């Protein structure tokens, strides 16, 4: 339990709470970016450099920007006049608290967790590339297919309605 870990986890958890409770959606998206950056720093703390930088590239760089675009396209940047939480919010919070309590109890009482590992494992990019190109080549190909399908699907989903409106207007 080093000071770096405590500070990083405090920043991450606090910005996650802010992302879930703030009223203005743009502020939510910015807090989410801070959460992702804190998680990337935690990965770097755990000596997983490649995953940390992939987290920054994919989440802070792409997903956060995508969410900001979606907020602006749906006019979510104007703060809502009505309540932001659903009327039965206490049920959701209670279930979430129970989930956290169960996981925390399981973590605390488990004896299967390794106590302390002496060696500091490292994963170089070369090792990762070797693994991805040999042992995990099939999942990698399937993932490429999935990303292509998701790209085409997202474009079609976001485009279809306007195409219908245009053809309807032409009649």
């Amino acid at each position: 339990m080093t000071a770096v870990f405590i500070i990083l986890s405090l920043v991450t958890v606090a910005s996650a709470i802010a992302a879930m409770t703030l009223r203005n959606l743009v502020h939510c998206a910015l807090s989410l970016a801070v959460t992702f950056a804190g998680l990337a720093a935690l990965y770097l703390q755990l000596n997983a450099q490649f995953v940390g930088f992939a987290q920054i590239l994919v989440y802070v760089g792409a997903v956060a920007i995508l969410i900001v675009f979606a907020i602006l396209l749906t006019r979510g940047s104007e703060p809502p006049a009505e309540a932001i939480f659903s009327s039965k919010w206490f049920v959701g919070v209670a279930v979430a608290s129970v989930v956290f309590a169960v996981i925390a109890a399981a973590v605390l009482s488990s004896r299967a967790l390794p106590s302390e590992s002496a060696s500091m494992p490292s994963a170089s990019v070369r090792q990762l590339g070797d693994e991805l190109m040999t042992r995990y080549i099939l999942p990698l190909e399937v993932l490429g297919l999935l990303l292509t399908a998701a790209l085409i699907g997202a474009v079609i989903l976001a485009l279809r309605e306007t195409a219908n409106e245009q053809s309807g207007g032409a009649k």
Partner: protein
Amino acid sequence: MTPLHGYLFVAALLFAIGFAGAVTRRNAIVVLIGIELMLNAANLNFIAFWRFGPHPDELTGIVFVLFSIAVAAAEAAVGLALIISVYRHYKTTNVDRIDSMRG
């Protein structure tokens, strides 16, 4: 309290926060943000178990997280496209008002 416990606690807390937000917020985009938080909490668990686990030479944890990040990115893209499509149709992103299939 070993470092592994600390990371597992942070991940559990992130998961609970994301879950609470996903089920209580009204805006569909914030629901998606909550789901992203839950996925990230799972990723943190993978990395923590890889770092402190008995077989750190195997890169399974890292590779699994890389795949998980890619799948989560695809999910975010399709989810946001769905939200934009729903917004065009209903003129709202409030999930309580999208209730045409309610009996």
